[in-house]
């Protein structure tokens, strides 16, 4: 599979701040790629380099087979972008902005425009200055989703949407799967979990993890709680089992996903009455990468 976006060793500094510090990112053609990171980690900077709005200080970036800085205008015909903070012209209506951006990208799917306006419940006749943050985002989303392009770059596109509209958004992106490549920057983990084939987690301008959710889960723990028929059997001695709590015949523990199999065998040998197992959430993945960022109180 070819890469729609491939970035390696990207560096971008603003004065003394190093916004990108050797960032790597590969987005395969046709996938929905989640781009995760806390505020200020460099997500938007990466996207703006990919759009040719910023010039990288070092590293390479390839977008749809071209150079994002040199071939900007030609590449932009093939992509649509939704900025994190959508700012509209106060005197243009939402409908006018959708048409304008669509035309500037080189074409708009009329049918899709209509359907999306309906689904997002957006009144296209309102002036830009009268829209709320969520409605401004809807304008940009409709313009992007109705555009006839192969790559969608969405920078925290749902930060102002209500849960109903968030669902509409997820539905719309679901429909794009396979037809277009999507780079979705977000810190709404449920959204990324629901939509993305692969994820890259960045921190301080560097990629710390990249892969499918299954691959990433592999690196972390599953929580298990069970009610057993007898006393637990040698669980404590098993490798990979953590935080074991035994309360009579009830057990609770976390286990490295690699060692899940052995742990379950140990449970079965005691007889299992009830069992709940919870795969690691993205939250846990995420927190695991950031927990050492919170200042330590004691050494």
């Amino acid at each position, binding site marked *: 599979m070819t890469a729609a976006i491939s970035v390696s060793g990207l560096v971008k500094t603003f004065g003394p701040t190093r916004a990108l510090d050797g960032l790597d990112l590969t987005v395969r053609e046709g996938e929905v790629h989640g781009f995760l990171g806390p505020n200020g980690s460099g997500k938007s900077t990466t996207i*703006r380099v990919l759009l040719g*709005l910023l010039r990288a200080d070092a590293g390479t970036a390839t977008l749809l087979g071209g150079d994002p800085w040199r071939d900007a*205008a030609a590449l932009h015909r093939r992509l649509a972008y939704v900025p994190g903070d959508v*700012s509209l012209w106060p005197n243009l209506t939402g409908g006018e902005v959708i*048409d304008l951006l669509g035309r500037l990208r080189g074409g708009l799917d009329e049918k899709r425009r209509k359907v999306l306006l309906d689904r997002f419940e957006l009144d296209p006749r309102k002036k830009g*200055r009268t829209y709320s943050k969520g409605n401004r985002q809807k304008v940009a989303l409709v313009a992007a989703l109705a555009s006839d392009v192969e790559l969608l770059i969405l920078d925290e596109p749902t930060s102002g949407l209500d849960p109903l509209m968030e669902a509409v958004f997820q539905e719309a992106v679901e429909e794009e799967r396979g037809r277009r490549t999507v780079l979705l920057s977000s810190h709404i983990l449920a959204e990324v979990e629901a939509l993305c084939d692969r994820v890259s987690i960045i921190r301080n301008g560097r990629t710390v993890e990249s892969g499918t959710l299954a691959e990433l889960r592999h690196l972390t723990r599953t929580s298990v709680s069970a009610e057993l028929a007898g006393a637990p059997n040698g669980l404590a001695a098993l490798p990979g089992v953590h935080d074991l709590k035994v309360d009579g015949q009830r057990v609770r523990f976390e286990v490295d996903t690699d060692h899940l199999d052995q742990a379950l065998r140990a449970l079965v040998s005691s007889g299992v009455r009830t069992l709940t197992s919870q795969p690691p959430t993205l939250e846990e993945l995420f927190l695991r990468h950031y927990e050492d960022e919170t200042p330590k109180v004691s050494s």
Partner: protein
Amino acid sequence: MTGTLALLRLALRRDRLLLPVWVIGLVGITLSTASAMGELYGTEALRQQIGVTAGSNPAFLAMLGPIYDYTTIGGILAWRWGVFGALLIALMAMFLVTRHTRAEEETGRLELIGSTVTGRHAPLAAAVLLSALASLLIGVLIAVGLIGLGEGASGSFALGLAFTSAGWVFTGVGAVAAQLTESSRTGNAIAGGVLGVAYLLRAVGDAAGDAGPQWLTWLSPLGWVELVQAFADDRWWVLGLSVLLTVVLVGAAAVLVAGRDLTAGLLPTRLGPARAPASLGSAFGLAWRLQRGMLLGWTLSLFVLGAVYGAVARAVEDMLKANPALEKVMSQLGGSGQIVDVYLASILGIIGLFSAIYVVQAVLRLRAEEADFRAEPVLATSVRRLSWVASHVVFATLGVAVVLAAAGLGAGLVHGARVGDVGGQVARLVGSALAHVPAVWVVAGIALLLFGLFPKLASMSWAFLVAFLVLGQLGPLLDLDQWALDLSPFTHIPKVPGADLAATPLVWLTVVAAAFVAVGIGGFRRRDIG
């Protein structure tokens, strides 16, 4: 009103650079002008000479108003700098008020403040207080400075407080304008329009002559600055008019604030079209949509200004026919040309400077689009950076030709109708107005250069424009060296009609402007957006 003082402190903190620049700038220009005049017109005889010649020159009457006292330096200063100084302080006042009221509301920052313990009227009160105090400070500093230069105390305070009064009235105008619309840009445009009308009313009134509608000057707050007659009569009660009008305007603004929602304007917003017209499909289409209102406004305004000045031209001739001695003096002043041409050339010079304001606004629109994150989504489409810049620069470069042609047309139509040669005068005056285009292009070039290379300093373009205005208005009077005067592109424009239309300086100005534009665009294509 709770929280007014806290907001005032916040405003002072935000403006800790801007405010001193305005205060020191305005006081500095005024006092250095007075001091230089003191050296130039040291003797009573010299002062009498300028009083008799310049004080009755109709071009000067229309631009500056009459001279009431030419026996003192203060009196000459009040005449030469009164209207322009008042114009600048009025601009300061209206910018300050909009900046701290409507602009804050538009960005949503006021919402943050409104949710704290601040009264509904506190933001308006703080902005008005800030602007009124700044105006008062400028007026008092000028008065004290003039006394220090040896001028009479009464006249010095009359002139200083006349400047203050202009600042106060336009504090009120800005406060009301900020309530009317939802955008600070439109608010400033409305207040600027009022300022333009005020300037025009007094121009017509002052140049009208004894038989004409001289009372028009009384309708203009800028006219009141002259009518105080500082150093001549010191008519303090005229200042009372300004105070009264200020109170009425600020009161009206306070009533308007109380009667509306936060962020809402008074002028209603209606629903617009759901689809974009076919014209809105390219970078140029977007720029046309964003720039057309301003272009139309300036074209109409300068057409009217041209027509008003044109209407006075005939009176100039009459006045001179009745006074052969003055005619002789004027032809010495204006060189070889006919008297009326000297007049027309000098008003076209002023119009050329005004049109440069339009050009700076048109170019700075680029920076506003960029800073407000509206450029980004457009540049993320197939629009090239070059096309995006060019789509706006076209309005600055060709738009200014339209604006100046309209001014020439207005002057030509009215003056032509009066002298019975419409076709000839229109052609002559449109041509003469267009001769200023290359100088204005240089201003556009400077603005674009700053935008391309130092985007955060783009608004410094205004400083260049003010410098050119000061050089043009005060330079010759202060007897500055020619090289200093030559720094302003407007110095190099031949004084048409009347003088020969020399092509060489126009070509050079165009070359310089083109170089600035090229460097600016080149810089923009290489830099980061944002």
